[in-house]
């Protein structure tokens, strides 16, 4: 057995190193830029943390964002990620291993994903057996749903949060199994780390009480559960309140109430059990029916109610009340395609694993069943929560595969209870089933490699295109423009752009932005949306009142980039309309037939709004190739409707090489005309 154990460790290490290799490979192409949108912000705050110290970081007021409001960063972020990176950096530098904080940030995600696969192994081993654990670790190492958050360079909260999530669950299962305070305290500490890292901690604080509650319903109450949950709830509560951003939420908001309710319920239940031991049956029944029935009923009802509202909170998050949340592609409901894309064959095999678990139920398998069911529900609500589903799918699929392999690959002679002679499997059946399973796994591996190399490995700030001869062409327009802003504008210049680019501008251009990806102030965003969708004069008023110096837009018409501002424009209009219904009406931007068109048939409001003018300024003169007329927009495949655009209050300040980013300068008020003043 010991020998088997060491081999297993080797395998685990192997899966970790494979993972690291995959992710480090990417860097060879894209050097060391911290890629995506939110990552820039995390990097910037980590940089602030390492250069100014922890307390300065907690008190950090960022006057560069949300001009003129500013943002209290220290109190409104989950500091776990930055503190982790900062701590690693500090320790390494203490040992005179002088790595740059940027390198720490870039490699943090792969390292943590390695830890995730180890904790997944541990959790699955607790649930099923070592073989399943090993498979689960291998699955999570390559599954596309998680690769997206664990590639080198993705410096994101989720990257470390999934590790914290899995590890907390492992410790929870362990503490339920042993009933030891030691494991429960470990679980609390891990939970504390999770709280400091990601808002998704709410998932834990609802799932664990749900587990306890279901155990109670299933008559599986035991001293172990009592010890584990009481310890976890009290210490976890106190610890979670230490994070400034969380503060008093755990005792105020409804999504934490389920945990409190279950805690009370558990105490009552334990007390009843105690009374049951002390009193005679008659006395107990009287007492029970007179007093406790009422109280328990109330508690039960409230718990059910609170659990319902609490777990629904994540869904509320995605409710389509405010267009701004609906406008984010990550908040859309998940399609079947993306389920398959992210999980591939695992999405088919994991119900089998769930069935195996439910068939041989015990305390911890109740937990994983609940985990699976709730995660599937949330992943269906919102693409982004696919991430919480991925680990459990890996675990349960591993259970399924492990069961099948055990049945078809194992030696019948070596079993503890060898099957009867007639029910033994023939060698043909065995080999066919094994081959099929291996084929499935192979296809899964091929799919994962493909997805990793194609979908998730290109940073969103660098676009790559391929020439006829296969050589790669890098379109580095974003960085070109951001760097121009950084170098050639006043240090305190204020840049107006749509909120998607807020973090990028703050991080790469180091300039003050009006709105950014932390969309906490809807009305401010609506004001920017209003400026973009008004005509130039009205927009100038707004921009003057907001002290805007530069306006930055993304325009993909030249190269056919579809994620540009004109394609996002309707969201700006909708968000602006939400706050300023008298000035902006969505219907004005459609043709009478209800189409959104940029050509001559488009609505005049659209053809004269600021966004349209800025996007197509001087584009009407440009002829991209001989087959199309001048001013032909490649993204929308239309010849633009307003070719003669004159700007009165704005001036083109910079346009990147492929016109992807256009920056306009807001002119100051003109000197008063001398002749008219006479």
């Amino acid at each position, binding site marked *: 057995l010991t020998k088997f154990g060491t081999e297993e460790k080797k395998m685990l290490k192997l899966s970790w190193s494979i993972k690291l290799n995959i992710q480090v490979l990417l860097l060879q192409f*894209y*050097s*060391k*830029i911290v890629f995506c949108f939110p990552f820039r912000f995390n990097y910037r705050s980590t940089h602030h943390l390492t250069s100014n110290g922890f307390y300065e970081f907690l008190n950090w007021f960022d006057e560069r964002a949300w001009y003129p409001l500013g943002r209290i960063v220290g109190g409104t972020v989950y500091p776990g990620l930055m503190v982790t990176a900062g701590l690693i950096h500090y320790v390494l530098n203490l040992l*005179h*291993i*002088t790595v740059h904080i940027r390198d720490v940030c870039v490699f943090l995600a792969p390292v943590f994903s390695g830890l995730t696969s180890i904790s997944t192994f541990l959790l699955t081993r607790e649930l099923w057996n070592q073989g399943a654990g090993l498979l689960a670790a291998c699955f999570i190492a390559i599954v596309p749903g998680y690769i997206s958050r664990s590639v080198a360079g993705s410096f994101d909260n989720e990257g470390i949060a999934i590790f914290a999530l899995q590890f907390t669950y492992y410790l929870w299962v362990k503490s339920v199994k042993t009933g030891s305070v030691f494991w429960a305290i470990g679980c609390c500490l891990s939970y504390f780390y999770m709280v400091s890292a990601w808002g998704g901690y709410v998932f834990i604080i609802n799932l664990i009480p749900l587990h306890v509650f279901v155990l109670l319903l299933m008559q599986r109450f035991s001293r172990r559960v009592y010890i584990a949950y009481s310890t976890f709830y009290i210490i976890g509560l106190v610890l979670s309140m230490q994070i400034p951003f969380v503060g008093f939420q755990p005792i105020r908001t409804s999504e934490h109430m389920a945990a409190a309710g279950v805690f009370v319920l558990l105490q009552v239940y334990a007390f009843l059990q105690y009374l049951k031991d002390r009193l005679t049956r008659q006395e107990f029944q009287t007492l029970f029916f007179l007093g406790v029935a009422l109280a328990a009923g109330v508690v039960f009802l409230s718990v059910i109610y609170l659990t319902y509202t609490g777990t629904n909170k994540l869904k509320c998050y995605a409710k389509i009340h405010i267009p701004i949340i609906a406008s984010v592609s990550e908040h859309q409901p998940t399609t079947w395609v993306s389920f398959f894309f992210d999980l591939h064959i695992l999405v088919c095999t994991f119900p089998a694993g769930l069935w195996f678990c439910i068939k041989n139920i015990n305390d911890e398998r109740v937990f994983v069943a609940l985990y699976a069911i709730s995660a599937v529900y949330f992943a269906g609500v919102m693409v982004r929560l696919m991430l919480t589903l991925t680990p459990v799918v890996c675990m349960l699929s591993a259970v399924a595969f492990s069961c099948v392999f055990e049945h078809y690959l194992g030696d019948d002679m070596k079993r503890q209870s060898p099957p009867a002679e007639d029910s033994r499997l023939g060698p043909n059946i065995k080999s066919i089933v094994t081959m099929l399973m291996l084929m499935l796994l192979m296809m899964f591996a091929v799919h994962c490699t493909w997805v990793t190399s194609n979908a998730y490995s290109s940073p969103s700030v*660098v676009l790559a295109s391929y020439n006829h001869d296969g050589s790669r062409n*890098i379109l*580095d327009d974003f*960085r*070109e*423009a*951001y*760097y*121009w802003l*950084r*170098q*050639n504008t006043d240090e305190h210049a204020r840049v107006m752009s749509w909120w998607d680019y807020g973090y990028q501008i703050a*991080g*790469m251009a180091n300039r003050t932005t009006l709105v950014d990806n932390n969309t906490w102030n809807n009305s401010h965003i609506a004001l920017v949306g209003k400026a973009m969708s008004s005509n130039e004069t009205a927009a100038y008023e707004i921009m003057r009142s907001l002290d805007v110096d530069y306006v930055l837009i993304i325009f993909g018409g030249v190269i056919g980039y579809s994620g540009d501002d004109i394609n996002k424009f309707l969201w700006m209009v909708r968000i602006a309309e939400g706050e300023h219904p008298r000035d902006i009406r969505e219907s004005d931007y459609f043709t009478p037939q209800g189409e959104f068109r940029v050509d001559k048939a488009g609505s005049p409001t659209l053809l004269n709004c600021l966004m349209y003018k800025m996007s197509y300024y*001087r*584009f009407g*003169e*440009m002829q991209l190739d001989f087959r199309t007329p001048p001013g032909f927009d490649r993204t929308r495949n239309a010849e633009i409707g307003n070719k003669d655009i004159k700007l009165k209050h704005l*001036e*083109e*300040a*910079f*346009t*990147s*090489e492929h*016109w992807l980013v256009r920056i306009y*300068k807001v002119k100051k008020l003109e000197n008063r005309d001398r002749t008219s003043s006479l």
Partner: protein
Amino acid sequence: MNEASSFRRRAARRPFSAAALGVSAGGLVNEEVKRTVDLSTHLAKITTELVLSNQGHSAVQSFILSVEPDLAPHLAYIGASVKGDGEDDGLLEIQQSDIHGHSGDFYKVHLASSLAAGAQLKVKVEMTFSHVLKPFPTHITQAERQLVVFQGNHYLYSPYPTRSQTTRVRLASKTVETYTKLGNPSKNDEIIEYGPFRDVPPYSEDTMKIHYENNTPFLTIGSLTRTIEVSHWGNIAVEETIDLRHTGAVLRGAFSRYDYQRQSDSGISSIKSFKTILPASAQDVYYRDEIGNISTSHLQVLDDSVEVEVRPRFPLFGGWKTHYVIGYNLPSYEYLYTLGDQYALKMRLVDHVYDDQVIDSLTVKIILPEGARNIHMDTPYKIDRLPNQLHYTYLDTFGRPVLVVTKDNLVEHHIQDVVVHYNFNKILMLQEPLLVVGAFYILFFTVIIYVRLDFAITKDPAAEVRMKVASITEQVLTLVNKRLGLYRHMDEVVNRYKQSRDTGALNSGRKTLEADHRTLTNEISSLQARLKAEGSDLAEKVGEVQKVDSQVKELVCRSCQEAERLVAGKVKKEAYIENEKNLSSKRQEFVGRIDSLLDAL
């Protein structure tokens, strides 16, 4: 005139004393002066070829070069060489001095051999001025061309009288707005020739002003920090952090990408890219800035150099700036010389960034290996040395010494070698590997201690029992296997007996079997008793093994007897064979049971 010159001659004896007039060297006269003012780039390069004649009465060791007060602050480089008949001799030693009563900068040039009275000498003087071409107008639009103004001197500014001189000005283009017309100069394409002017008194100044079109790149390096990190493991890492600025006419109004892409002369004074020449052995070249790799560069490896086509992220228009880092590795054997413990690093203090470069402020940091002592630096020209610093990188304990030097206003002429001498004890090379070895040794040792020793506060009796039981069962297994081996041995004895019919051998074999069997069985039963004492249920299984084994033994004895009877002729052969078959199949069964029991242990 004569009186004055004799006065001057006397004053020359007292070097640069208060009352001395400018002409301090005795009776030197510029016989013939040819000046070339090269304004075709953004620098003003003035080359003066002059024939000095000593009209005094004694030999002179040195002469004075002077720079006009307007131009003096911009002087980046000055060099003088004696022009012989054939090739140029080496550069002469130049020392800054000053002359009271006259403004401007003065440089005293020491001659290699003294100039005798009445003799003549041909001297070539090179001066390079930065930032003397002022854009005018200072702001232009993208479509406009860049015009610049140069203000200089028609005459050679010299402490000596000049007999005859000409000045030739080379411009960047034919388009000239205005130029001063002293002495009716001739203009031919981009060349304006002034002179000859005859008998010009000392310190003559007359403003020459030329306003012309110049679209050459007006690039200036605002600050350059060059870090050279020497490793004795064979590598020298060089990194340059560069702040670049377009110091031409500032762009006014909009920058239109459309015009820039469609019209070739739009933004003609802007800079798209330039070439940086790195040493031929440069490897792992990188070019990046704060937000990552700059993907718009090309590298070309030539025989004698590595050329990097540096393209900033965006074209540089007037007034725009950018910032980047370029770095590469060099093999140390080309630059590091050693003799015993003494080392000498010979490297360029500053290297090529672009042609006709101007560096406003240069900082060079040379990081020597940890433990370098007696550091001494030979610089090719005067340079400010700041106090040494310490630098910590991987595996450093007491820090590497860093030499820091700075200098302002550098041009291409400053690309020269600097030599750093230091002592380094070679034993120190082992320090870092030993450090790593030590760290790993401590790590492994700790792990060994942790694994071997029991640090548990509480004993876990169950685990201990389990371990004890495991060791006992192991012993049982070997003993039982040994016992089964005895039976096989006995079979062989019986077979041999059947052939040889040697009863003695059979009996002795049987005796040893009995004896060995007894000792083994006793040992196993004692182990069984111990297992029972530990409370393990394995004891029962061992008991079962014992029972089965006694049956096996019986069978062995039976087959032995049968064989005896066969030999004695008491049974027929066929009956014996059948009997034997029976017995062996039974035995097989029993042994199989023992095996399965053993597997279960």
